[in-house]
């Protein structure tokens, strides 16, 4: 494959956006978890919940900071590398991102400040309210981003005027079925990510024999939540399949490695798709009508094969095919683990079963892998289109971008992200290792709002030291 500015731009976007999504998918779940902990603390008055809250707030702070920093890059990358896209779709995508910035960022920044800083300054109910507002902010951010991305997957509610996509029906853009299949799918993915990270941390402490009380709460709450959410998540995943069948037949054919039209269709479980010869090697296949049943909820529906689609409209086959299978595989593993753990917890065997504890501990990468491979499936499967069916990726790129400029930028981003990621992960690891320790009442001076990563050390201002009794 030739190294072109187009290829480099695609790689750069894929790299920076993949790096970015790791952190929001973690923090959306964590913010909800923090809200639950604070509610439980208020309801029961048990200090354990407070201890857990303070502990996870630190980790939330670090991950949130990475999300912010890597998110700023995304806001500019649309214009630098995809100037034709940003010129043409600006009237649709720009306002959506403006809503994200206006509604989500402001909310997050302000109330996150209260979380870090305001424990002694505000009433307990207001502190809980602030936690909920941070959770709402992260969720709103995801909401606008999913509308934005869904519009690129299935563009609706627009007309083309003067080479621009001019919105003529915002209701359609925001309230279409594609958004409402995909937004919950992403939201539950984030909740499951939080759930498994929390459960894995609990399992780790139980295996090490430390923080038993906190560990038990984390393990159980994480696995219980996952046990409930995982089936719902699979259901929404299935709903996602329906929009793909209806609007993106080429993506569906690639996901299923289906080369010929079939009626009713069979289902390839595993194979090595041989794109050059348009066939599958080493295929394990369920006979018809399983393919129709899975893709169209029908015993005799016809399913489209890649050969009836012009080859220049094909996405790359391997990435959607394997990405989808890895995602589903992770999902099924998580389901099995969550249900096993929940079953064992009924009579207290869970905490003594070291096999399940080890499995839970090692499960924490699963939701991240599932989220990333799910996005690979969605985004690579959309190719060769940036806005499906109307704007090709090759035409969306900045027209005069050179290989040299694109090489410089991808190298710079890779170097910087690797550098800061290494330090950030080390930092989170140290926090997790130390565990939920420390004094409960965080002095307000030790925390600075608007500074996500700053919770763990202490630049102090005079105003912060003045803690008026009346406030």
């Amino acid at each position: 494959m030739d190294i072109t500015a187009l290829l480099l731009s695609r790689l750069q976007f894929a790299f920076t956006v993949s790096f970015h999504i790791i952190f929001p998918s973690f923090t959306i779940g964590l913010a909800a978890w923090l809200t639950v902990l604070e509610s439980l603390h208020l309801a029961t008055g048990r200090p354990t919940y407070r201890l857990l809250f303070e502990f996870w707030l630190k980790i939330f702070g670090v991950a949130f900071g990475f999300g912010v920093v890597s998110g700023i890059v995304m806001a500019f990358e649309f214009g630098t590398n995809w100037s034709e896209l940003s010129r043409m779709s600006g009237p649709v995508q720009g306002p959506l991102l403006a809503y994200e910035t206006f509604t989500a960022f402001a909310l997050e920044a302000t109330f996150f400040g209260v979380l870090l800083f305001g424990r002694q300054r505000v009433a307990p109910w207001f502190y809980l309210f602030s936690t909920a507002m941070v959770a709402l902010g992260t969720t709103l951010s995801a909401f606008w981003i999913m509308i934005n991305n869904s519009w690129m997957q299935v563009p609706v509610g627009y007309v083309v005027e003067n080479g621009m996509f001019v919105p003529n029906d915002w209701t359609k853009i925001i309230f279409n079925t594609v958004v409402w299949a995909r937004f919950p799918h992403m939201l539950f993915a984030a909740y499951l990510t939080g759930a498994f990270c929390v459960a894995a941390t609990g399992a780790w402490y139980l295996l090490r024999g430390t923080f038993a009380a906190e560990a038990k709460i984390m393990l159980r709450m994480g696995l219980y939540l996952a046990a409930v959410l995982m089936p719902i998540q699979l259901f929404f995943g299935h709903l996602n399949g329906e929009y793909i069948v209806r609007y993106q037949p080429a993506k569906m054919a690639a996901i299923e490695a289906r080369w010929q039209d079939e009626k009713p269709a069979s289902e390839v479980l595993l194979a090595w798709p041989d794109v050059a010869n348009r066939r599958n090697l080493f295929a394990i296949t369920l006979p018809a009508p399983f393919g129709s049943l899975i893709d169209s909820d029908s015993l005799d529906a016809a399913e489209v094969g890649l050969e009836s689609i012009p080859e220049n409209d094909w996405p790359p086959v391997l990435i959607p095919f394997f990405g989808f299978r890895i995602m589903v595989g992770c999902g099924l593993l998580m389901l099995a683990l969550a249900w096993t753990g929940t079953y064992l917890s009924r009579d207290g065997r869970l905490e003594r079963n070291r096999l399940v504890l080890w499995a839970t501990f090692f499960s924490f990468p699963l939701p991240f892998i599932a989220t990333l491979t799910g996005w690979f499936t969605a985004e690579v499967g959309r190719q060769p289109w940036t806005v499906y069916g109307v704007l090709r990726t090759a035409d969306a790129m900045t027209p005069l971008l050179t290989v040299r400029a694109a090489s410089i930028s991808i190298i710079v981003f890779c170097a910087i992200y690797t550098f800061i990621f290494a330090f950030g992960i080390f930092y989170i690891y140290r926090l997790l290792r130390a565990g939920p320790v420390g004094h409960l009442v965080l002095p307000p001076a030790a925390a600075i709002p608007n500074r996500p990563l700053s919770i763990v050390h202490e630049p102090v201002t005079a105003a912060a030291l003045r803690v008026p009794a009346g406030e």
Partner: protein
Amino acid sequence: MVMFWVTLLAVSILIYVLLDGFDLGVGMLFGVASDEARRHAMMSAVAPVWDGNETWLVVSGVILWGAFPVVYSILMSAFYLPVLLMLAGLILRGVAFEFRYRAERLRWIWSASFAGGSLVAAFTQGLMVGALVQGLPISDGRYVGGEFGWFSPFAVLCGIGLCVGYALLGTCWLVRKCEDEVRDDAYRLIPYLSAALLVFLIVVLVYALADNFRVMTRWLDRPFLFVFPAAGMLAAITLAASIQRRQDALPFLMVVIIFAAAFGTLAISFWPYMVPFSITVEQAAAPHSSLAFMFWGAGLFVFPLMLLYTAISLTVFRGKVVTSAKQ
């Protein structure tokens, strides 16, 4: 509707320049601070607010994309390398706040990345404004100037000028927030930086007037516009007086007025052009359906809230910094 969004864009950019300006300036001064106690005090002076300040860059960016997509598309593609450098600088200085406290032996890396990142970000921002003022090669609504089409001595001059300006804002912020040696150092620097900024502004003005008579006639047609530079001059005089009398709170406000005056002068010199002199505000504006959609929610209701949040954040952290050495 177009007027509303161009005003909001201008306000957001101005807020960004003023707020992130002072913390980028402190970052640059940090690079020349002589000891660890000073560095610590300087960092503490901006630590509580820098992240909120930077949010305004994203706000400006998305308003530009949503309300004036053509301009967003032109500027981002034209400034491919400067934007890359700016982002790299902002990332490195952003994480430096956090990692510097963690590091022991590697602290010098994060000190360097804080100062260097601030310098690079400030310089590239000035460079881009300078290149924009000078004029970018545009054809058919697209940038056609190549990788270095933005490069010119004038743009470099503007890059240096903005570094000086931000450093001045930074010194005034330190005067306001710090005490003892940090404040005294800052007071000593202010006259030099103000003089340098003044020279820079005069050079730019002369250059702009000599180079382009369209700007000149604009000013001669509307003499009341001289109120902006006049306000700037007045603020400069007050600045000098307040330094004489060591009034800690005043210099920062005066430099804010100077910046606002320079910003107003710049905007009015080129009105109604957004990309001088090829694309006007009207030509750049997104379709009405986009502007109206943003107006009835984000613009009318959420924007005032964001201003309120910023005000709250600055109010909460008012007053002098107490460095941990003195606790």
